[in-house]
């Protein structure tokens, strides 16, 4: 009998395969090492692609002489202020559009017709309105953040289960509390999807605006060293933009976990 035995094994075990935590670091480390080797062997001239070690050295120098900090602070102020204004207005107006049928009917067509305009095209107009100070940069970022947030908040409100609103009203909630205690938390997952989308947009607009009209900031720094053909310092700017984006995303993820513990 024994020879006829056929043990059944789990044929979909590959779906549950465990990957160790260092795998993520492995890819990046491998790429950097490969890059360094390519540069050291002079396969690509340093003008076109500076070595990672050279970029890091340049970054250290720029940190010490304060140039980097100065530009970074200017950029972070713009993106911080613009993002905050855009996000707060976006969430507030998205909630109102989702809740009030009148506001929805009147304002939503306007929102959807302005939404597809690439916001950077409005920069010359905004400079005309606000002058050439910090205002136009903050305004263009706020505008770029506002639309994805407002549209996601709006759809988030629409996806809140009406039975929950009925339940809240049954147990005595007034309209304000329905928005505060049911619609806002119910829309929160979608709001965060909008905030993450807007994070990418805001970085793009920051760099574009700084390249077009700014003396300071990472964007103008990158353009400046590009014009001077100092690619090492240009890459320092790119490196810090990547770090900025990474930190931005991580912060939003952390905030999302804090605010949506029930998921």
């Amino acid at each position, binding site marked *: 009998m024994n020879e006829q035995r056929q043990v059944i094994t789990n044929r979909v075990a590959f779906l549950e395969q465990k990957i160790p935590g260092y795998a993520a670091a492995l890819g990046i480390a491998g790429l950097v090492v490969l890059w360094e080797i390519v540069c050291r062997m002079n396969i690509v001239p340093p003008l076109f692609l500076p070595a990672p070690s050279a970029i890091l050295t340049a970054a250290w120098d720029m940190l010490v002489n304060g140039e980097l900090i100065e530009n970074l602070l200017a950029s972070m102020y713009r993106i911080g202020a613009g993002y905050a204004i855009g996000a707060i207005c976006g969430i507030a107006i998205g909630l109102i559009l989702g809740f009030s049928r009148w506001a929805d009917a009147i304002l939503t067509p306007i929102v959807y017709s302005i939404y597809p305009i690439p916001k950077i095209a409005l920069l010359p107009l905004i400079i005309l309105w606000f002058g050439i100070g910090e205002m136009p940069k903050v305004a263009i970022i706020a505008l770029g953040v506002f639309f994805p947030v407002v549209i996601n908040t709006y759809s988030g409100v629409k996806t809140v*289960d009406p039975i929950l609103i009925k*339940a*809240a009203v*049954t*147990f005595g909630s007034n309209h304000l509390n329905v928005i505060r205690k049911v619609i806002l938390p119910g829309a929160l997952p979608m709001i965060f999807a909008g905030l993450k989308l807007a994070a990418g947009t805001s970085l793009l607009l920051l760099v574009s605006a700084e390249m077009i009209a700014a003396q300071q900031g990472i964007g103008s720094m990158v353009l400046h060293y590009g014009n001077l053909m100092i690619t090492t310092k240009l890459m320092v700017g790119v490196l810090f933009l990547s770090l900025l984006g990474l930190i931005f995303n991580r912060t939003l993820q952390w905030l999302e976990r804090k605010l949506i513990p*029930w998921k």
Partner: protein
Amino acid sequence: MRIVIEDVGKTFLDSKKREVTALTNINFSIEEQEFVVLVGPSGCGKSTLLNIVGGLMSPSSGTVYFEGTQGKKPKLGIVFQEIALFPWRTVYENVIYGLEESGASKQEQQEKGKHYIDMVGLQGFEGAYPKQLSGGMRQRAGIARALAVEPDLLLMDEPFSALDAQTRTLMQEELLTIWDRTRLSTLYVTHNIQEAVYLADRVIVLSRHPGQIKEIIRIDLPKIGRDKEEYRSQFEQYADQIWQLIKHDAQEALKEG
């Protein structure tokens, strides 16, 4: 306090803009401490009626009112078929929702919250989110939330229909025990005849097209322990009587899909 449903009717416009009568000529009352069950085939408008009584839908004609309120604003508690707990609130926060909205003090919220969580047997799960609970436990939390406001009328819309058969039987027993302690006037909607006979003081049988009251049957059995052997034949008689009233309509409903 007694609740009167007077000449209530409801018409809808269907997708082809034709008028459809969902309910017509509904007249009954729920006495203080009475457990009334609405039973009928699918599409008889029983959930519509419950929504009207709960103030979640306006009737096309007729009125629903509380009698003998003595100036007090009557409170409603609803247990939903979909359970409808707030996913972002823990069990405790869900249970005290109504108290919070009525402006009860923190201390009162805590006392009543604990009392009703204990009553439905959810002690130890106060800090859990609805997602972490089984269907039966979620509905217990839903019941506790409705009881916590100490309502003048408790409405239950097929509260156990989403549960599996075993959990359902247990929950019916528990509901009776809880009801026996609180004695709340209750309007309960179900399509399950056994459940209706098991729980009701009076069963209101609805028919469809249009939804109207076919018969009101008083269940003359002791409230607790109707599933005992000695009441079996009477229990079956009631169930059969209701089934005969509904059978034709249910068959029609089946044909329509």
